């Protein structure tokens, strides 16, 4: 286990999120991503073809993942680096903490990494008496706030500039209290100044990876702040932590995927920095780490290969699905209760922590399908959420009232004559009860509906009974 999941309390989390005025204000910003993605896709005539190609690259890689992992490992070793395979979160934490201890590290800097969040790495590093400093601005902010990311590419999207000002005043006590932090660029400047010292003092730098290239042994990160570069170049050691499905066969494949990644994520044609790192510093290199390690995490992923959730391993973590999700837009990422929010999280979370813990998430979807519509690697997210519901149903985990209600409905629906009789009766009764106003403000057994909206009354006799009265039973 890793970060503690509050996913079973999803409904309570939703209530908290919807009544949090500050959060609701901050979330309006998240909606801007959708328009930017649409504009970026519009600007590139071959965007849809690129999505097909991106899907094909990932499918091919997943079908031969063992081969490409071995090829990647060989290349990393050839370039002077080390590869460590971690079966689960605990193994990964041990490896990374062991490496840091081996370096005698007092302080490590970190580029943004969702794998780090998944395995709860910061707590483990700090438990070993080593300072861990997040260097992505959003990650730095939530680290100060002792929070987790609420979005996979914009971790502090739930935080307002005013919150950040307060956090900085509390954390940066060495700076003059009368300083002006009213503008975002002042906040940025202050973070930059504070982090510069941390970059220079770090003994190791830990980054994630957007892609690992089997052909060259390189890891690729994209950032908009350049913090990843300073994290991986300045310290004595660079430790890459990535999950196994980040592998792609060739440099060309990575380049193709990069073309859909930023466009789908932020609507940029490309992220500001795209950085390749291959092994430690070579003789003659002006800079770079003297040690290079890659920790490859499985944590349940290999079990997804060959099964009905394999498509999920195509995910390149762009965040487009959550940016376009009406549920995510309403409640933000923390309500999902674990590391990965939004539609991708609703599919991945039960895979990684089990359907008993994570089963709420794939249920909490209207199946509007917008996530699948924008996914750069065309993951059929609603279909996979439905697969989780099927597993829940098969294991008897779905809530009893739902099972009972559906069972009763199915009983009538499978008996057309009885169905016509029962619905005819119900429609007429409800019509009579509701005809004065045409609708109900409350109704028995419909509290989930009428607590928030009126319920229209039926028009009277059903369509089928009126039709039969007019045309006879045959037609």
């Amino acid at each position, binding site marked *: 286990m890793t970060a503690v999941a509050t996913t079973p309390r999803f409904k309570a989390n939703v209530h908290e999120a919807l009544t949090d005025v500050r959060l609701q204000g901050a979330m309006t910003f998240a909606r801007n991503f959708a328009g930017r993605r649409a504009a970026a896709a519009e600007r590139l005539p071959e965007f849809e073809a690129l999505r097909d190609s991106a899907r094909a690259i990932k499918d091919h890689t997943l079908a031969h993942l063992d081969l490409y992992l071995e090829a990647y490992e060989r290349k990393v070793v050839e370039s002077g680096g080390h590869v460590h395979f971690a079966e689960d979160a605990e193994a990964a934490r041990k490896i990374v903490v062991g490496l840091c201890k081996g370096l005698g590290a007092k302080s490590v800097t970190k580029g943004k990494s969702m794998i780090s969040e998944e395995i709860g790495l910061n707590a483990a590093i700090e438990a070993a008496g080593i300072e861990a400093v997040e260097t992505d601005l959003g990650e730095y902010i939530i680290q100060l706030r002792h929070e987790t990311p609420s979005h996979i590419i914009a971790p502090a999207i739930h935080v307002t500039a005013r919150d950040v000002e307060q956090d900085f005043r509390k954390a940066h006590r060495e700076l003059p209290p009368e300083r002006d932090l009213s503008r975002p660029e002042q906040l940025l400047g202050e973070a930059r100044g504070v982090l510069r010292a941390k970059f220079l003092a770090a003994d190791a730098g830990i980054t994630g990876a957007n892609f690992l290239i089997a052909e060259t042994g390189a890891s690729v990160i994209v950032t908009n702040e350049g913090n990843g570069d300073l994290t991986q170049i300045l310290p004595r050691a660079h430790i890459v932590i990535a999950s196994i499905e980040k592998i792609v066969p060739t440099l060309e494949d990575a380049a193709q995927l990069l073309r859909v990644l930023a466009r789908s994520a932020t609507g940029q044609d490309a992220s500001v920095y795209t950085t390749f790192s291959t092994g430690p510093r070579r003789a003659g290199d002006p800079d770079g780490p003297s040690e290079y390690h890659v920790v490859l995490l499985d944590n349940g992923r290999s079990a997804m290969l060959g099964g009905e959730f394999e498509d999920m391993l195509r995910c390149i973590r762009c965040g487009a699905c959550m940016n376009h999700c009406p549920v995510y837009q309403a409640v933000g990422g923390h309500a999902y209760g674990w590391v990965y929010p939004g539609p991708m999280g609703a599919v991945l979370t039960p895979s990684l922590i089990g359907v008993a813990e994570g089963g709420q998430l794939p249920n909490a979807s209207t199946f509007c399908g917008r996530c699948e519509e924008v996914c750069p690697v065309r993951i059929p997210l609603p279909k996979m959420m439905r697969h989780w519901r099927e597993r829940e149903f098969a294991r008897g985990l779905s809530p009893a009232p739902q099972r009972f209600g559906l069972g009763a409905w199915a009983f009538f629906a499978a008996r057309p004559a009885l169905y016509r009789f029962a619905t005819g009766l119900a429609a007429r009764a409800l019509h009579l009860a509701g005809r004065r106003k045409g609708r109900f403000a409350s109704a028995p057994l419909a509290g989930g509906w009428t607590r928030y909206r009126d*319920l229209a009354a039926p028009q009277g006799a059903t369509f089928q009974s009126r039709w039969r009265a007019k045309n006879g039973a045959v037609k």
Partner: protein
Amino acid sequence: MTMNAVEGAGPRPRRVGLFVTCLVDIMRPTVGFAAVKLLEDAGCTVVVPAQTCCGQPAYNSGDRATAARLARQAITAFEDCDHVVVPSGSCGGMLIRHYPELFAGEPEMAAKAERFASKTHELVSFLTDVLGVERVTVRFDGTVAYHDSCSSLRELGVKAQPRRLLASVEGLSLVELDEAETCCGFGGLFAAKYGELSNAIVSRKADDIRKAAAGTVLAGDLGCLLNIAGKLQRAGSAVEARHVAEVLAGMADGPAIGEPQKGAGR
């Protein structure tokens, strides 16, 4: 003077089975009769085989066996129809996209489901894309906004078709919502199971509709419409909600969704 509301239809009579959907059957038969009128005006022979539910609530709740049982029942009931037409994108998506997925291990039934899917159409797109209907000759005075139901839009590609026909309605002016393609938060059982969340989503939809300053909101799915109408009414809005077929068939003179009959027992 012609009684036909629809022009431009082909000459050959087609036997069209109306899959009326449970919501229309029980809640709003007017939509069913509007569909019949549109189809008959376009030269079709309409039949209504005995029917119940398409099985979508079971399918989306993870109960595949029940969904498959109801699918089998529907496929059999409409066996002798040239086409099956459904005034709902959501039920249409179930019949067209999901029925074939239900019979993966049964080749014979899977083939039947495929044939059924290929002859099944959402109502408005059937009129325009299959029958070639280009315009309707009806009148509706007012400003309307059209909400794209998620299934119509994303599972069946219905977007331009209703707008094209609405543009031919005399007296009607169509305004676009800022977020016409954003879900209304209905999602079938989702609306009841996650009421608070559903409410947050439909509240945004209602705001968007009010902002558009339309007198009427239309859609092709009664589920979305019950949700949207219920929210607008709870919020005290005067915007009315109707199924698009009611307007296209010239049958929008009765009470809108959730509105009382004029002079109903007071």
